[in-house]
């Protein structure tokens, strides 16, 4: 624990699933800008613990990303995506 950190550190940085919170139900594989948030600089899909999404939506996101990769909207692997 750092000196100036409060004891309830975990509660302050509460993670939430952005789909549940904002009521988004459909993940569109055509939206390049939206899907970029779930992908790292090398084009790899980010794990749930980093993005905070729930299991149900993580599956939809990864399915959308794979479709986008098939249609060359997103790359399979690069070095300079962002």
């Amino acid at each position, binding site marked *: 624990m750092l000196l100036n950190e409060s004891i309830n550190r975990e509660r302050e940085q509460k993670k939430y699933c952005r789909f549940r919170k904002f009521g988004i139900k459909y993940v569109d594989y055509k939206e390049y800008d939206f899907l970029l948030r779930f992908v790292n600089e090398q084009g790899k899909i980010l794990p749930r613990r980093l993005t905070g999404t729930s299991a149900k939506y993580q599956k939809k996101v990864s399915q959308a990303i794979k479709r986008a990769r098939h249609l*060359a909207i997103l790359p399979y692997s690069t070095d300079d995506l962002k």
Partner: protein
Amino acid sequence: MTPVLSDIQVKDTVNKYKKILEGKDSEIVHQEKWKLRKLAYPIEHKKMGIYQIVQFKSTPELIKNLETEYGRDERIMRFLTVSLDKIGVEYNVNKRKIDAKRLKTEKLESEDKKESKEKESKSVKEVPSEKPEPESGKSNQDKTSKEEA
């Protein structure tokens, strides 16, 4: 910038698939054309592609035929057919509304009032569908291959 496939060729290929779709049991709900777009990785040694989206309702047999036709056509590099459940259908209906509104406001800002009135009458009519609507995702067309409008 002129794509390898000329506009006429693009339209020809699109019309070809439209005819298949407009046959007996199917209905085209929406069709959209994207600008020439840079691909994330080269396909068939090409770096740009033309995308087309078609949303339609049809029977499974028609879809099979469609896909074999896509495979045979040299002009189409990639295709993806997706079936939409009701959430997907709702999403697309809303998206079309938003796009139509956005186009309207853009037109109003840049052009005369008369032209904006014309645009309003042409706006897309939404067809609420109960069946799962298969959405034929982009067909990536090659510049060298024929075009689909």
